[in-house]
């Protein structure tokens, strides 16, 4: 155990309960240990296993709750009740769904590449879990605090597309490959605005470590970096590949896209990964822009983190219920012509402000917010002017006669139809 791990309360509590009489723990008032002396390595391994189990099972439990909550919210957004039959308020619905999924037959298509076909569900579930290894859930409650945490998140989240491509290719299905192509196009387009949007946050915090970013947020960065938040949120929704960006599994065009040939628990893993991605996205947004676990004192920091997480999830679900799916070219145009410019404006303005106030205090952060909000509003308005189709929704009737040939002109006057027209 090194010093950084002992500062982490999650590691320290589990390790020192196991090996209490080691010198590192005795100096921190951990007296009795479960394991005898000389077995610190075993305590370290057990602590690691315990933390992995804790985090993964916590996330899976969170996904179960999220599926239930999302379906309830969908119901309420459509003036329905949502699932309410199985368990109190329908909380056990997703458990019943999981059991049903597990008992289904596991089909593999004859044309499939069996190894890749079986590997793809694992590949897609792993990155969503890996993101949580650097997220701080509370004061001293994190698995690891990497000094390149943000870069790690960016790298890991882009692995999802590799899994989608693997799944589509190994299915031996042309519709699935179309879906994977869309997925790659979506990722390449939105990875750039997403990465550039967090540059402002990195400049303000002066570090890529998520712990340092939270420590720097005397004012939540959603107020200081409105443009960055706007771009990051939209790009993150696109990375999740959910409505309005669910081009990859567009039901009306591609059936289910890359999910076409999957059944049983393999399909369940894809489904699980989708919800884990939603959870991890809102965790990242919470950490970067909503000041993570920071809050008022008597309420524990973990509670603040979860409350902000739920608020972000609600907004994501609200987006999903409101906006229809966009066309491929619209999505790509929006990323390259809209969001990319916005991130550039954001980076330039933030760089100038950082040059004026290096290492800003809380008061200076408020000043930055006061400057950034008008910039954000004006630039979003300008970009929407550039991108928008003028008077698209209200076509004006033209005064002149239509130039295309009208059928009635070619009808001879003596015919039955012509006589009817004259009779009018």
């Amino acid at each position, binding site marked *: 155990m090194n010093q950084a791990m002992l500062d982490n309360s999650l590691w320290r509590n589990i390790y020192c309960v196991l090996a209490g009489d080691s010198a590192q723990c005795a100096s921190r008032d951990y007296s009795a240990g479960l394991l005898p002396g000389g077995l610190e390595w075993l305590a370290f391994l057990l602590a690691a296993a315990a933390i992995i189990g804790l985090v993964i099972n916590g996330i899976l439990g969170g996904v179960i709750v999220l599926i239930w909550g999302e379906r309830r*919210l969908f*119901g*309420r*957004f*459509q*003036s*329905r*009740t949502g699932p*309410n*039959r199985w368990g*109190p*308020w329908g909380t056990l619905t997703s458990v019943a769904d999981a059991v049903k999924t597990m008992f289904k037959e596991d089909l593999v298509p004859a044309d499939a590449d069996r190894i890749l076909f079986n590997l793809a569900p694992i590949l897609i579930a792993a990155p969503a879990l890996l993101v949580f290894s650097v997220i701080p859930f509370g004061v001293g409650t994190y698995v690891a605090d990497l000094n390149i945490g943000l870069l790690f998140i960016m790298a890991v989240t882009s692995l999802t597309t590799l899994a989608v491509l693997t799944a589509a290719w190994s299915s031996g299905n042309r519709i699935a490959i179309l879906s994977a192509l869309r997925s790659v196009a979506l990722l390449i387009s939105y990875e750039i605005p997403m990465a550039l949007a967090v540059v402002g946050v990195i400049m303000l915090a002066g570090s890529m470590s998520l712990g340092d970013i939270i420590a720097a947020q005397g004012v939540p960065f959603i107020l200081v970096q409105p443009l960055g938040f706007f771009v990051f949120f939209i790009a993150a929704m696109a990375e999740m590949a959910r409505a309005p960006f669910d081009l990859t599994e567009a039901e009306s065009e591609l059936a289910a896209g890359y999910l076409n040939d999957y059944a049983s628990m393999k399909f369940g893993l894809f489904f699980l990964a989708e919800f884990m991605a939603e959870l991890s996205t809102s965790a990242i947004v919470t950490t970067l822009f909503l000041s993570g676990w920071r809050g008022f004192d008597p309420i524990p920091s973990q509670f603040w983190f979860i409350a902000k997480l739920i608020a972000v999830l609600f907004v994501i679900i*609200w987006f999903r*219920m*409101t*906006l229809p799916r966009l066309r491929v070219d619209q999505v790509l145009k929006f990323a390259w012509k809209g969001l990319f410019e916005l991130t550039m404006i954001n980076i330039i303005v933030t760089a100038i402000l950082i040059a004026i106030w290096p290492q800003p205090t809380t008061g200076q952060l408020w000043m930055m917010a006061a400057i950034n909000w008008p910039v954000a509003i004006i630039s979003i308005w300008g970009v*929407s*002017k550039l991108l*928008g189709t*003028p008077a698209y*929704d209200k076509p004006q009737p033209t005064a002149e006669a239509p130039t295309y040939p009208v059928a009635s002109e070619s009808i001879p006057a003596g015919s039955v139809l012509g006589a009817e027209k004259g009779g009018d």
Partner: protein
Amino acid sequence: MIGLGLPRGFVVTLKNFIRPPVTEQYPDRHVGLLGAAKEAGMNPFQFLVKKPADSLKAIAGLATVPVAVKQSPRFRGNEFTYFEDRCTACASCAKYCPLGIIEIVSVPGKIDAQEGESYKLEVFDIDIGRCMFCGLCVEACPYDALHMGTNFERSKYVRDELVITKEELFDAPKRPSAFYRPQFEEKGFDPFKETIEDFHDAGRHEQKTYDELKKKWVDER
């Protein structure tokens, strides 16, 4: 202005979110503590004290209250209502049935000097599995003996059980639908709450008194 459609859309979905759900839950409705107490006919505090187990169940969100579906009295449903005493075994219903699913076998019964010849009904089967509930048999019945029912829960595991026999029709509770029977609506009869016990009540006309009959058949001749 460009982009105003988005916030408008968000407001629309948020309005729907705030509005109470319009779902009709059937056959039972999930209630909280307040709903369960209201169903038991007391205020929540009384309910908590008098029925702690039930109120705990209600707080946990497990309490259900049976609900009836709101239906029209003219609903054409299953379980035909049949009054044996009104039936003359004329088989009009069987003749008018477009699918021919009503089977009637009648035999000559007693011959009464006053009432004339009467027929006895031996078989009266309706194959509900093929019935389309058009109601033509009910319209054809000259003596208001056959009425549409108001029930709709008649799913069975075996096809043969879908045939309603004479005995079943006798024993079934008499809840006739007001379809093609305006007398029920005039009387204010509610088939979902009350039943008709006396076959006279199901008729289209009031039963004539002795004086009226005498006037018609004796005095006027």
